[in-house]
């Protein structure tokens, strides 16, 4: 059973430990702006919402890549960017309708969540279980998948 990140915004306190853990593990710096998961602060609603790539089935980023630099990790199901192949054209950053692929000007490559190879640092760092790494059929994930389905460009069948 593949596992997925499950996010429960109701439990998020906005401590940003997830962003720090992500940027440190992936970029070697404690810098939230380099994090692949972002916590959005909705002050008027008094809510914090962590948000990152859902590893969607449509894989807009992967299909839009002109140089085969994004592939599926067979073990985790994550869509993973190969730094060796990425040319930095940024097409995936506009193709992903979830806004979860970003261009890193320092490296000239794009960055996105890769589930840390199967042990996501954000989930480990979260002190309130707002981010957990659970079986992929978890109901919270279904909610995100439903949104992903609405975002399809129109194919009602998939190959």
């Amino acid at each position, binding site marked *: 059973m593949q596992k997925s990140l499950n996010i429960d*915004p109701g439990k998020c306190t906005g401590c940003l430990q997830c962003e720090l853990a992500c940027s440190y593990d992936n970029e070697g710096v404690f810098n939230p702006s380099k994090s692949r998961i*972002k916590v*959005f602060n*909705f002050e008027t*609603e008094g*809510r914090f*919402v962590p*948000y990152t790539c859902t590893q969607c089935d449509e894989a*807009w980023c992967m*299909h*839009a890549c*002109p*140089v*085969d630099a994004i592939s599926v990790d067979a073990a985790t199901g994550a869509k993973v960017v190969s730094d060796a*192949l990425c*040319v*930095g*054209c*940024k*097409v*995936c*950053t*506009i*193709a*992903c*309708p*979830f*806004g*979860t*692929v*970003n*261009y890193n*000007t320092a490296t000239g490559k794009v960055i996105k969540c890769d589930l840390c190879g199967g042990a996501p640092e954000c989930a480990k760092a979260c002190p309130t279980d707002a981010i957990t790494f659970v079986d992929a059929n978890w109901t919270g994930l279904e*909610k*995100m998948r439903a*949104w992903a389905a*609405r*975002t399809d*460009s*129109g*194919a*009602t*069948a*998939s*190959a």
Partner: protein
Amino acid sequence: MSDTLGSGSAGSAAHVIVGAGPAGVVAAETLRKADPDAAIVLIGNEGEPPYARMAIPYFLTGNIDEQGTYLRKQAGHYERLNIRYVQGAVTGVDTAAKTVTLADGGTWGYGKLLLATGAHPIRPPIPGLDRPQVHHCWTLADARRIVELATPGSHVVLLGAGFIGCIILESLFERQVSLNVIEMGDRMVPRMMDENAGGLIKRWCEGKGIAVHTSTRVTEVRDGDGEELAVALDNGQVVPAHLLVVAAGVRSNTEFLAGSGLKVDQGILVDDTLRTSDPDVYAAGDCAQGPDLSTGGYSVHAVQPTSVDHGRIAALNMAGREARYKGSLIMNVLDTAGLISCSFGSWDGVEGGESVTLLDDPAYRYTRLEFKGDVLVGAQCVGRTDHIGALRGLIQNKVALGPWKERLRHDPNRIMDAYVATSQVV
């Protein structure tokens, strides 16, 4: 890449795909999944493995080698999928006999045909463009010649500062040439960006030492000193050039369909199943004029995301799986000598719509959002790279913004907040 590049002058297959760019290759792969046993023939005509034109700028900068431009990197990819990749220039389609004809006289019979023939660069009617120092930057063959001529310090003139021109500009800049850019429009990227954005990009490029001439035309290209050309402009200036790169737009490849009976306008007309006016013929990518999400009409959107969407949906329908296309959204992302910009959809606004702009001139940052009612219909950004894909999500899904419209009007930078708030339970 061990796939053969043999000429394939005759035969027949359940699925014949003409054109080995992104639309053709994605279609072939999708067909293989959807129709595991069917014969699939993919016809290319450049004598190269299938590659990405989009990657050429990075080949020019030396960031990647030629293999780095290939659409698929694994050796034997097409053979493993039992996709027969052959070479040949298709010169005609006979929809009654269900055959395509190649330049060498051979024919391929098809059950279903996909035309993914792409586009070709336009050569404007300027005297002197037949000289050997004049090149498009469209194919790998073009790129090899540009690499020879665009040496550090050489004089290069780039004709056209549209989207493609500006991508080439970036590579020429990195090759450290002395660069003059000539654009007949009143600003850079006039079909992707407004005056504010185009102005920022021009000022940025000038700050990098690039001479940008807007509202200017090339009137004639003559022999200059030594190996150089003399490029005459309509403002009286004459600019020397070891190399003139022509990037004056592209046009769908449809000429070979004359007499075929297939309906062609700006591109090959297709419906929301990517089917042409013939029930067994489909079209995808730069050659196809398909449903336009923004206008509700039919447009050629010659961009990578549209090509791959087209290729996938055409292939599903060719395999007998019904798939309908909601329409393409025009979108572009550009890096001009380090300044990154993007535009989506109706970036110039729609009738009866509303607009909000936020310009930070000294910081080279700009955001413009276009609304119709409480739905985002278009956007452009300069100097922003974070979460820009959410603009596609908001526009494509016609998300009702509710209170977020006012919040975006107050602060257009809160794009991703608006996206998360309207897509998640907040």
